[in-house]
């Protein structure tokens, strides 16, 4: 199921349930409270009507009264309680049954329809359809009993009780029970409730329709960025890594879009790196093949010459020297390649070593070379302990010195000092060789890259020295940094970790208390 449908379904469910429940409880409460109010009114009205009936019955006995009707003096002995009511006058003239007439007249004076039952349950008079003997049976003297009734579209409340009649006249006939019931019409209230329900029905339909439209818009609004994201992801899967999402707001969607864009950046960068790596590998193989081909061509050529031709001793020696020389180049190439391979595939545990002694040792190892090449070498090293691999670091320094010599340097300065924070030990190799163009600096650590190929090959270089040195620096948690200007020489620097707990970590003092510093001049 689509997210759009899920949001729509869930929203409709929540909205529908909330609206239905609210409507149900409101309408139910309204009906209940209306009926309760009506029953309260009915009981109040009943109390009033009961007083009216009781007080009327109080004087309703065998009284004699005169009635002037149509200018004729009439005399009657009927039971009556009033001489002012026109309805009673009419009843008297028509000579109706006295008791039925009395209750009919009495009922007509009440504001609500009423019914009277005798003590034996016989109906004396009723202004509405008989409520049924069940209700009459429930009536007592001690309570006002009420019951809801429905009739057609309307309804009413029947209220009743048993009245014990008393009389203040001489001819007392106290103690007789009379069942008195009134009917309180609640049709209007029920009709109002019905109107309220119809109104709710219309409101519900309008609100649900509007709510569903809003939900559709909301779902579309919420799922649009996701759809967009899905489209972008598809295009990325097809190889277009430049696609990005427009980020709006700081909500979850915005954060997701941002994360997606970051992921796309990372993927694109990774892909670029992979492409670059692949290119570099291709270049490496091509360069390697080329580097192999040159000395091999030379070796094969000279070997063929020796084999094919009758050469003088001098010529044979010269050809053999060339073969030997190219052989040396191949040997150097294979050794460097082997070192590079080893460096890439092996772990080198770094040990705590005194940096000044290490540099001193490396310098001493290079001293014959410097003497041979007439290099003015100077070493200045602060005493400190560093985390390093002795052999690798020596290889690195030899490679850097070798590179300086190949660049035609006559002076090399090697220095070592701790940084200001005391966390890194900075080693710097400065020469006064031919220097490099700035654009060359970014590529000089690539394998087989040579600034001056002719000169480099002449010196048995294969363009692997700085690549090897950079790899060693990386194994020590850093890289090589170059500063160079053509004609002004080159400065190469890198740093080593200083062990944190070592008390001699930052520029520790020698035994005499002064700063320990190695110095060597060749």
């Amino acid at each position, binding site marked *: 199921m689509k997210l759009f449908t899920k949001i729509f379904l869930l929203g409709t469910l929540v909205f529908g349930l909330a609206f239905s429940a609210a409507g149900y409880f409101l309408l139910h409460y309204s009906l209940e409270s209306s*009926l309760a109010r009506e029953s309260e009114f009915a009981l109040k009205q009943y*109390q009033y009507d009961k007083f009216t009936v009781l*007080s009327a019955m109080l004087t309703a006995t065998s009284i004699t009264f005169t009635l002037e009707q149509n200018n004729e003096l009439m005399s009657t002995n009927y039971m009556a309680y009033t001489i002012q009511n026109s309805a009673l006058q009419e009843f008297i003239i028509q000579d109706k049954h006295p008791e039925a007439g009395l209750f009919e007249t009495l009922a007509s004076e009440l504001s609500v329809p009423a019914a009277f039952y005798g003590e034996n349950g016989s109906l004396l008079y009723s202004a509405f359809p008989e409520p049924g003997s069940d209700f009459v049976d429930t009536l007592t003297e001690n309570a006002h009993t009420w019951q809801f009734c429905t009739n057609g579209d309307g309804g009413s409340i029947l209220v009743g009780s048993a009245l014990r009649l008393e009389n203040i006249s001489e001819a007392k006939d106290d103690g007789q029970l009379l069942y008195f019931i009134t009917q309180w019409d609640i049709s209007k209230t029920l009709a109002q409730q019905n109107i309220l329900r119809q109104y709710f029905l219309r409101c519900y339909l309008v609100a649900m329709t509007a709510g569903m439209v809003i939900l559709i818009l909301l779902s579309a609004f919420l799922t649009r960025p996701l759809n967009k994201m899905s489209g972008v992801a598809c295009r990325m899967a097809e190889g277009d890594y430049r696609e990005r999402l427009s980020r709006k707001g700081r909500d979850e969607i915005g954060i997701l879009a941002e994360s997606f864009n970051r992921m796309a950046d990372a993927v694109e960068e990774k892909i670029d790196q992979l492409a670059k790596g692949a290119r570099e590998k291709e270049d490496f193989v091509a360069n390697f093949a080329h580097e192999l081909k040159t000395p091999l061509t030379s070796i094969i050529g000279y070997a063929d010459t020796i084999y094919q031709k009758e050469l003088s001793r001098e010529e044979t020696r010269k050809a053999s020297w060339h073969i030997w020389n190219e052989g040396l180049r191949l040997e150097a190439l294979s050794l460097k390649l082997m070192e590079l391979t080893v460096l890439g595939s092996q772990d080198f545990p770094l040990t705590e070593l005194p940096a000044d002694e290490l540099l001193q040792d490396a310098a001493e190892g290079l001293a014959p070379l410097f003497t041979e090449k007439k290099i003015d070498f100077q070493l200045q090293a602060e005493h400190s302990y560093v985390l390093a691999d002795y052999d690798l670091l020596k290889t690195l320094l030899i490679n850097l010195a070798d590179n300086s010599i190949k660049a035609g340097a006559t002076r090399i300065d090697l220095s070592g000092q701790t940084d200001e924070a005391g966390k890194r030990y900075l080693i710097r190799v400065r020469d006064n060789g031919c220097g490099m163009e700035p654009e060359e600096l970014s590529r000089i650590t690539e394998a087989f890259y040579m600034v001056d190929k002719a000169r480099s090959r002449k010196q048995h270089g294969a363009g692997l020295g700085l690549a090897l040195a950079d790899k060693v620096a990386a194994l020590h948690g850093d890289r090589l940094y170059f500063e160079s200007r053509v004609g002004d020489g080159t400065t190469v620097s890198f740093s080593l970790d200083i062990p944190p707990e070592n008390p001699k970590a930052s520029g520790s003092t020698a035994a005499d208390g002064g700063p320990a510093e190695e110095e060597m001049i060749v």
Partner: protein
Amino acid sequence: MKLQKIQQTSTKRSGGYFVNFLGILAALAIAFGGLFLVQGGLAREEEKLMAAGGMLELPPPITEIEITDTGDTIINTLLTEEELLQVAASLTPPVDVRLHEPLQGQLSMSQAVECAQTWLEDFMMPLLGISGPSIAQYRTNCYLWTPETGKSDQEAQPWLSYWSVSLSNQEIEASFLLNAVSGQVLDVLVGCTAPVEHQDQEDLIELFDAYTSYFGEYGNHSIIFNGESDFGAKKLPWYQPIGDNGLYTVMMASSTISMSRGADSNTLVSQELFSIHLYLSLDSKEE
């Protein structure tokens, strides 16, 4: 292989559309089904409520209290001045009333009617010189009420309930307000078309004095004529203090003569309507 994949995707998509379609149908069913549920539920509730009933328990029947015939009036007891003040205060309009059944210590309906009739026939009618029909010839209507204070019958003071009694026949129409405990007439309005023989100022003052004394002897009974000493058809109220706490009896009386044509349409028939209103009040300038 690719074709197979496309076919699978297409089948999945058509399945997805079906599920989405079902989801939308379910949403519509929820939306409009809820309406029918509400309507059905409400109809059932209404049916249930309309089949219900109840019972309002009434206080137990009272034992009739002893009332004393003083010769021209019947009372249970005299209210104290303080009680009379509270009674007058409770009757100050506007008053929401609550009808109730007589409680223990209160007059029954027949006793209330008897008190009113005796007061009318034995106290007021002789003083005004009215000769009316006998006791049983009245149309009676009465009800017992108390000012609505939100208190239940048990919490309410029984002497702050009142019987409203109206007695009427062809010549006299009287509306009484009786204290439900004492049976004292706190307010009475009488309209009379029968001849009133004693309606001079002296006769009315005698009636007014008698009415004030009816509440007991509370100090000086000098009448305040309220700027108009002559009795006429102006209905000006007269006041008489009961005690010194701002409680007054008030009397307003008037006499109106109306003329109408007789049965033969040639002769004019005159009829006098005498009305008198006596009541208890907290204010001597209220009208």
